[in-house]
């Protein structure tokens, strides 16, 4: 299945892209996250991953199809074909 990741702020700077499609072999967010870490390395990993708790950082908002997801364990977050996913840092309006 194909999902799309939207990049904002630091994520846009790291990836050099506004959005990007990935083909996943299973339907959990953990699969997508492994691909992202493989492709973009520690820069991206350090931004979103809490290595101690082995979860997504508490301050990162996970958005799927424009809806915030409150779960931080990516192995129990389901994706579907066509899902859009974004990881958001805390906001800072002008």
């Amino acid at each position: 299945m194909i999902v799309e990741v939207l990049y904002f702020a630091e994520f846009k700077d790291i990836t050099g892209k506004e959005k990007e499609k990935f083909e996943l072999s299973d339907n959990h967010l953990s699969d997508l996250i492994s691909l992202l870490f493989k492709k973009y390395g520690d820069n991206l990993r350090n931004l979103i991953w809490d290595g101690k708790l082995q979860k997504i950082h508490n301050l990162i908002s996970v958005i799927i199809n424009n809806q915030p997801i409150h779960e931080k364990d990516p192995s129990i977050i389901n994706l579907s074909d066509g899902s859009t996913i974004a990881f958001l840092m805390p906001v800072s309006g002008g």
Partner: protein
Amino acid sequence: MSGLENAKKIESGIYSKGKIDLGSIIKSIKQNSNIIEAGSIHTFTGIVRSTSKNGKPVVSMKIDAYDELANESIKKICEKLKQREGIIDVKIVHLKGEFELTESLVYVVVASAHRKEGFKTISDAVEMYKEEIAVWKREDFSNGSSEWIH
């Protein structure tokens, strides 16, 4: 008042830099059919300051936004504040793109029956958008480095 009747109606939300200015938002608010009940119009414009919060010299700024989410939050804030007694209209327009010093980043406009609730509501609107909308700013410093603010 000439021309007001033809002013473009401007919706609150995220816009690319250059697409909108404060004057056109005020004109749009003056077309609200309840505007004759207003005694004051309050505006807040956030502009690029040459110094960051911790004192570093800023030379430019970038604003990024998740339009769908930010537009939704902005509309919610405006709708909520418009329910208040004496508040005639509230508009929030946040720009995105690359900005130079003194350029405008965001406009908030409130029309109110009396000044007291206008001052209160525009201040609340600013605190709310700063907390709630999916917008990020990056400060570019004079030494060539940059930092996303959170």
